[in-house]
Structures are given as C-alpha cells and as structure tokens.
C-alpha cells in the first residue's frame, strides 16, 4: 500500500487551515461574535452593512467547507491499521465525521442566504442568522464521538508499536470534554454558554483549532511509521526472493 | 402443462372467480348508494371466504400444523369481527 495519497490528504490540512483562518479574519461577525441578544432590526442592519465581507467569507467556506474530510479519512485509514479486534471504531468515526460535516455546510448556506437579499424582512434575516450560529456552534456530538472512538481505538491498539502514542488518546478525550459546552448554546443566550460566550464559542473553537494542529503532526508520524513498516516488509520480501 | 390444469386447484380458482363476480353483483351499484349493513356483511363474508380458499388451497395451509391453520383462521375471524364492529358502531 502506498502512503502518498494519505500524505496529500494530510497536507490539505495546512492549505485549508490557512484559507479557513483567512475567511474568519475577513468575516465581520466574529470579533466579537454577533450576540444572541441582538434584536431583529439590529441583526438585519448588521447584515445590510456587511454584505461584502460576509459574502467573501461564506463563499470561500462554501468552497472549502468540508476541506478537513480527507484528513479525517486519513485518520480512519490509520485506525484501520490499529491492532483492534474489529473496525467498529473506524467505521463509527467515518460516519460521525460525515454527519458532522453537513452541519457546517448548512450554517454556511444560512449565512449566504441572509446576505442574498439584504432588504428582506428583518425577522427572516434574524432567523437565518440564528440558524447559522446554532448549526456552527452546537452540534458538538459528532466531533466528540469521533474523538472518543479514536481514543478507544488507541487504548485498545495491541500492536507492539502502536499507530498513535497513548497520550494522543488522552488528548482526544480532553479535547472532547472541552467541546461539550458548545451544545448548551441552545439553552443560554447570555453568559459563557451562549453562542458568543467564552466556553461555547471561544473555548470550543480554540480547542478545535488546537486539535486539528496536534492531530496533523501525530497523523504525519503515523503515516511515516506505516511507510517505514511497509518498506521493511518490502525489503524482507526482496531478501527472501 | 395442460395436464397440470386438470387439477383441484383449477376448480378452486373457478370458484374464486365465480364468487368474485357474485360480490361484484352484490356490491357494485349505480348512483345514489346508501349505507347498507346487509351488503357490507355479505361482501365481507365473500372476501373472507375467498381469502380462506387462498390460504387453504393455494398456500397449502390445509396440510399445515394446527398452529398455522389456527393462526390463519384466527386472523380471518378477527378481521371480520373487527370490520363489522367498527362499521356498526
């Protein structure tokens, strides 16, 4: 098996990561995030005044929205290499990653529609705005499941030389826990758990960024390890021949 | 192939066709139909008889163990009772 394709998927991470950061930097609604306590007129006025910036970001996100999916699938491939008795965790991870991606696409569509007709009834703009923020911030269940499955896979990896070191499992569990507060943006509109709050938004997004960065490096080592092992097997076969 | 048609099953089929026409004659009517318990009961009885013939002869429940025979008949009875009860209430 060749590991080149996996490396390509892996290196899509910094590529898309930079584009994501660029998009976020352009997005006018982020620093600070729009508050859930803003009224309809206020929100509509914001969208009217920032059409260009929001469009730029969201069209960019529309194109690259699920750019991390190839990376998650590399992790699936690496999970399948683990010394687990079955591929149950790998398949669960795959399914959760696919479901999670759809929500981001939905959020993007809602934002694009909010600025598609800036003179719309403010109530409708407010609705699209709320849908976008909820879909972005709250569906943490999928990434949490991904992390738990990966962690469990690592704990049960029976290979003499594990695919991922054990601390990666601990790291996955900790990041999963740190993203839990995001779900409660459904309940609270003020305070740290609101969708613009420090826990639901700041901590959750920061954790996700850190998570992707760390996983980039450990996955790179895992791919290297796989390449090495397969080269070893290849050499062995040559020797036998 | 033709010799297979000389078969008790063909007789059952002829009977089924015949009573289908009977049900048609009883049930189908022109304009201005009205609620009619007698017609309903008769049509229902014919349907149950037809289903029972299909069960016993085509599906060979005739030769089946008792539990299966009773399950099929039980369904037919409860179907008839249920429809009539809900209809009349």
């Amino acid at each position: 098996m060749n590991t080149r394709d996996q490396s390509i998927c892996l290196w899509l991470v910094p590529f898309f990561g930079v584009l994501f950061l660029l998009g976020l930097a352009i997005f006018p609604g982020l620093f600070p995030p729009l508050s859930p306590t803003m009224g309809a007129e206020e929100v509509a006025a914001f969208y009217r005044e920032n059409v260009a910036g929001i469009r730029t970001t969201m069209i960019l996100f529309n194109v690259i929205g699920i750019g991390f999916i190839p990376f998650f699938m590399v992790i699936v491939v690496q999970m399948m290499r683990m010394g687990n008795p079955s591929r149950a965790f790998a398949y669960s991870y795959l399914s959760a990653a696919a479901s999670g991606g759809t929500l981001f696409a939905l959020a993007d569509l809602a934002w694009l529609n909010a600025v598609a007709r800036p003179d719309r009834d403010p109530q409708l703009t407010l609705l699209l705005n709320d849908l976008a923020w909820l879909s972005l911030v709250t569906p943490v269940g999928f990434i949490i499941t991904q992390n738990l499955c990966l962690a469990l896979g690592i704990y049960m990896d029976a290979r003499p030389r594990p695919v991922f070191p054990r601390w990666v499992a601990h790291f996955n569990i900790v990041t999963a826990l740190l993203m839990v507060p995001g779900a409660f943006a459904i309940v609270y509109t003020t305070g740290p758990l609101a969708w613009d709050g420090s826990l639901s938004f700041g901590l959750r997004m920061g954790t996700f960024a850190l998570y992707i960065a760390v996983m980039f490096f450990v996955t790179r080592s895992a791919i290297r390890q796989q390449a090495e092992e397969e080269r070893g097997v290849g050499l062995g076969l040559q020797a036998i021949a | 192939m033709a010799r297979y048609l000389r078969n008790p099953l063909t007789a059952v089929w002829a009977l089924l066709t015949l009573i289908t026409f009977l049900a048609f004659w009883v049930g189908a009517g022109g304009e201005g139909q009205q609620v009619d318990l007698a017609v309903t009961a008769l049509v229902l009885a014919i349907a149950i008889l037809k289903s029972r013939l299909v069960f016993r002869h085509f599906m060979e429940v005739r030769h089946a163990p008792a539990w299966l025979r009773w399950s099929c008949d039980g369904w037919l009875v409860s179907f008839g009772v249920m429809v009539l009860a809900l209809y009349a209430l």
Partner: protein
Amino acid sequence: MNESVLNLGAAPGERVAAVPVVRNPKLDQWICYWSIPFFYVLFGLIFVLLARIMPPQSPTSSAADIVAYMQSPTLRWGIALLALTLGLASMASGIIVVQMQRMKGLSAALPYSYLAALAVAGVPGCLFPCFVFALGGLRPEYSPEIQVMLYDLGFLSFVGSLGVFTIQYLVFAIAIFLDERQIFPKWLGYLTIWALVTEIVAVPVWVTRTGPFAWDGLLSFWLGTAIFVGWEFLMCVCLYRAIKNQPIEELEHHGG
C-alpha cells in the same frame, strides 16, 4: 459519558480486564453495541419527557399554542442533550457494519451503503428538526408566522424524512436475504421490510393535517413508531447474538 459507555462495555458474564484486548477480544464491539441501548434510552428521555417532540404535538394547534410549546422550559435542554449525544448513533452504524461485513455472498457495497445512508439520515431526520425547534425557543420575539413555520418544518422533517431511512432499511434487508451465513436471522429481514413500509406510510404527512395519516396520526406516527421500537429492540437482540457467536479466530487482532 465516556465512562458510562466504558462500564457498559463488557457483555454480561465477561469482565473488563486490565489489558482488554487479550481478555475480552470483542471489547470494542461491545462498547459500540452498548452505546445503542444507552442512546435509545436517552433518545426516549429527550423526545418524550424533555422536548415533548414524541408523541408529536398536533398539526392543527393554534399559533398561541405553538408559541407556548416552543417556549417550554425543557425543550431546549433536551435538544442540547441531543446535540451532545447524537454522535452515538454513528457508533451504532459502526458495529452493524462490522457485523454486516461478516456476511458471506455479498461485497462490502451493502454495508457501506448502510453506513453512508445513516450518516446522511441523522441530520434531516433528527438533528435539523430539533435545531428548528430550538430556534423557536431561543427567540420568543419571532413573529407568530415564523414560529408556526418553524413548528411545521420541525415536525415535518422529523416525521417526514423518509427516503434516507427507507434506503437504510432496504440495503439491510437485502443483505440479510443474500447472506449465506445467517449472521442475522431471516425474520429480521422481513421485520426490516415492515419498518421500510411503515416509513412509506408516513408519505401523506406532506398532504394532510388531520386523521390517521397526519404527522401525529395513528398510522403515520403511532404504528410506524411501534414497529420502529420493535425493530430496534429485536435488532439489538440479534446484534447481541451475532457478536456473541462470532468466533474469536475471525477477529482481526485477537491479542495472540
């Protein structure tokens, strides 16, 4: 959450060992397996008690009732809990796919279809409608028209997202019928066909608001839900047996 799943991880009569791979070679499968009853108990709690989405509210409620329903204090708590745990449904697909791959006489196309269909289905069939309800609850100041639209959108996509689930049932039933090893019993395949048919019986929710075919109707909702609950339960029983009966030698790494 992670702890509770872990503790449930072992089958009755088996013990979780310090080095799980050696002592309990099916531990990973059991963890995924027990996530199913865990999730569905939670699911019932969320939908019946907290969000009161099941049984569905009436399609003919007045705007005032709809606004009041959306503002009920526990609705958003239930949905937050769902947003947190819906990923467990992925673990259910994971373990079912693993067992489907043991079947003989078919390629991986059907298990993969099952996986993909469910990965799609969770959003329009469950999470999206819940978000829609949450929106209504989050903003009491929405105009009543919007609240009513959210209410319709929520219940219609919850009860009326059909195709995504029919395909899941279809590929599962086909796999069971083709399987030469009888990983799952044939009757589960037939039960799956009923589950498929009852999804189709929900088609009229899109055209009628009263009677047995409305979204809270006897046929569209109650019969369908009864069969779904039966299917899920018997599916769990059959899956338990399938994992239990899987020979150790068949596992990819059994610690040896």
